[in-house]
């Protein structure tokens, strides 16, 4: 009985605001009901541009994150188990640094940097934000990749690949990667969700990413802001819901536990 009560209360508390948002977003700025707020993103060049920037950031961050972390995790498991704890600790370290403090560090770096670094790093949101979003995503990436790599018989796979003449790159991309794709997909989804949600650093550094533009819309056009919020919550949820179904290779339960 108490179980049902709790679930009903939770449903009211969490689905209530979502239902309110949907209702709220269906009232257009002209007062009529309709999907105008949802199609606004197609007509508003600023919004569309911000969304494109964020999607590029998400893709680039995920790519760098995986290229950096998958070989590192494999290497540590295989050749350097004694530093596994150190690498794990360093990877989880970004949790201790609030985004606003990371942003403050970057703002201060921008202020002190010579014009060379300034133009190299800070002239575009892609070069300015991607390296640091990778850092913010490290805790998620390390944990999911480590769980995935631990669940496979790494030593045997590596020995087999090596004895067939595979180099390090071939081994990672053609042998390890297909075996840990659940973990890789989990890490990628979490990184994408993180980039599409990150507002604090990009706002402080004055880059026009999607969440920054979303927050700005709130002042001018609440209907559009709420509509985009609904879309963003639903899309992120679908992404994470989908990965609870990906792969059933025994590691599933543990990867699922990350969520």
């Amino acid at each position, binding site marked *: 009985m108490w179980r049902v009560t709790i*679930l009903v209360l939770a449903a009211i508390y969490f689905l209530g*605001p979502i239902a309110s948002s949907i209702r709220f977003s269906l009232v257009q700025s002209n007062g009529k009901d309709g999907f105008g707020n949802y199609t606004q993103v197609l007509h508003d060049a600023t919004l569309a541009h911000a969304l494109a920037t964020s999607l590029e950031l998400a893709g680039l961050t995920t790519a760098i994150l995986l290229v950096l972390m998958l070989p590192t995790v494999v290497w540590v498991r295989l050749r350097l188990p004694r530093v596994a704890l150190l690498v794990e600790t360093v990877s989880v370290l970004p949790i201790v640094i609030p*985004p606003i403090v990371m942003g403050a560090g970057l703002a201060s770096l921008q202020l002190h940097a010579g014009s060379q670094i300034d133009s190299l790093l800070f002239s575009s949101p892609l070069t300015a934000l991607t390296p640091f979003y990778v*850092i913010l995503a490290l805790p998620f990436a390390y944990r999911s990749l480590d769980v995935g790599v631990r669940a496979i018989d790494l030593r045997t796979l590596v020995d087999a690949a090596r004895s067939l003449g595979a180099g390090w790159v071939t081994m990672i991309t053609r042998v390890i990667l297909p075996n840990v794709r659940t973990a890789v997909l989990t890490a990628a989804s979490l990184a994408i969700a993180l980039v599409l949600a990150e507002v*604090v650093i990009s706002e402080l550094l004055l880059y026009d990413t999607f969440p920054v533009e979303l927050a700005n819309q*709130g002042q001018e056009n*609440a209907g559009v802001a709420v509509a985009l919020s609904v879309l963003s919550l639903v899309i992120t949820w679908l992404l994470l819901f989908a990965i609870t179904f990906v792969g059933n290779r025994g590691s599933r339960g543990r990867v699922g536990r990350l*969520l």
Partner: protein
Amino acid sequence: MAPRRRGTLRGPWVGIVPFAVYVLLFLGLPLYEVLYGAITTSGGSLTWYNFSQTFSQPEYRADFISSLKISLETALIGGFFGFWLACAVVTASPRSPLRRIVGSGSAVLAYFAGVPLAFAWIATLGRFGELTKLLQHIGINLNNTSFTISSLSGVELAYISFQVPLMVLLVTPALEGLRPEWREAATGLGASSFGYIRHVAAPVLAPAVIGAVLLLFGNAFAAYATAYALVGDTVQLVPGTIQQLLSGNVLVDENGIGLALGVEMIVVIALVMIGYAILQRRAGRWLQ
């Protein structure tokens, strides 16, 4: 001798060089900037001024106190409800739709909701929110009360909606670790249901639950996106003040104060994480 030395250098350590260099550069550099800026003047000489300002100026003290207060309150409330929600869900099989929906939904709200969550609450309890209108129908006018969604108590309400899901994510593994045999053994020895909870379940779960609440505290303390979208950088919380001090429309000298506040935030969260790690180790004794 020389080739052999080269051989050891190319040995196992070479594999973590990219990771080490990357982290040193892109985590180390901003951290160094924060620390260096906090303890030096704009001219570059050492100073304690920035830190002493954060302690002596009432406005900064007030920010810290309200940040700590909102973190504590949302951690306790979120922890309480999150724990019971996790208990209600954990009995279902991990592959059941309920578990999948609650799990993925919790991850969205706990980690990635930020700005959208703020607007969901504005649509609900804002000036023209759906619940506000509904309450007006039955004669309660929220707009005449002191409550607004962009007040600190509104921010708190919104924060709880990511704290509860985070608690669910954090305590579910601990609850899964409770073995059915323990209950059977306790019952077999004549324990009542309450006795089992009092003498077995509660002591086993306590470190994990306290650790999770601690993490919730740190989470709310570091959070800013939701408050920013609800209130803007005038919100009376430490991150809002840091943003104001660093966004460039104040004197350069005040940059240092913002960075000092940043260092203090890191210290608070680092202490929380150390406590969490200690409690996790204790929790691991029985669970998993």
